[in-house]
């Protein structure tokens, strides 16, 4: 259940940003979650519901942008979708894929009053 830790991280970042900007209420928190980041989105949403209580984000909406995994094969030079961790290129079956995106776990922005 590391999603609770992730949510705590999100709330800490959001509250720090909001406070340094002199804001009093967080209306929404926009985050990016990569498909290879190892985070379950339903768990994340559930944990956010619970953990936001008593914070500046008590009534905030969590907006999640899912970033699909993409990789590059240095052998055949193709860019391919990566749905789970794998090392073999689905196109040429040979090389080790470089992951281009999908590991993101980031707070993009917050909306505050």
């Amino acid at each position, binding site marked *: *259940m*590391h999603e*609770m*830790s*992730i*949510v*705590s*991280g*999100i709330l*800490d*970042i*959001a*509250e720090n*940003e*909001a406070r340094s*900007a002199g*804001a*009093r*209420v967080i*209306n929404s928190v926009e*985050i990016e979650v990569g498909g290879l980041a*190892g*985070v379950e989105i339903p768990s994340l949403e559930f*944990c956010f519901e*619970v*953990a936001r209580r*008593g*914070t*500046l984000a008590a009534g905030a909406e969590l907006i999640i942008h899912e970033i699909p995994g993409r990789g590059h094969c240095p052998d055949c030079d193709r860019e391919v979708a990566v749905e*789970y*961790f*794998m*090392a*073999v290129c689905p196109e040429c079956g040979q090389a*080790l894929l470089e992951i281009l995106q999908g590991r993101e*776990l*980031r*707070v*993009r*922005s*917050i*909306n*505050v*009053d």
Partner: protein
Amino acid sequence: MCDTCGCNQPPEAVTFRKPGEAGHHHDHNHHHHDHPHDQGASRTLQVETDILQQNNLLAQRNRGWFEAKGILALNLVSSPGSGKTTVLERTITALKDGMDVSVIEGDQQTLNDADRIAATGAPVIQVNTGKGCHLDAQMIRRACDKLAPADGSCLMIENVGNLVCPAMFDLGEAAKVVIISVTEGDDKPLKYPTMFAAADLCMINKIDLLPYVDFDVDKCEQAARAVNPRLEFFRISATTGEGLEQWYDWLKNRLGSSRTGS
């Protein structure tokens, strides 16, 4: 919330104890929350901050500290019951004369594992994470303050038995060692790819039980290589000692590199 990770529990829920020591509480700063009711104009603030940034920064600090002291820190991860503690007991006893080993034991509850390690004579500290499912970099920092591992020694961090969450949290270790036992499924690397992708070494334990279980070692290694082609494998039995020499050699080599900073 606890220091960096939270897990929705108060900070005093995470405890640091040496065997024979009573548990005690630490003071921590608590978050203070405002509850304003007046509303201004709403605005959007660009944040662009990595959610694990706090843990990653602390992990890098730990890593620098280990490097400066020539300490080889290893993060041992597995499902519960794969034999991490038995591997450690055997390793500490076998290498006693040539290597200083100290241990950080992570479990949700009890001092049981720390007591087993203490019986080998190695310095050990037990971190009880309470409801937490993994160790984080801050817990390692605080455990090291108390444990004070010697310069040029090997620090074994036995993470909470869990193949999911510990993969996400860098502790500042030099390498992750994943242990799987033959009483588990040989497709586990495919079921829990994040951990196998993050590991440097995979030890397949309890091979003395292979005649009694339906576990295909080659298939398991093949599955793990599909998620991590750089992964090294040792087939071992912590009970009989079979295959452990290669693990001891690996440890000696890595410790040598840590001491010389290469």
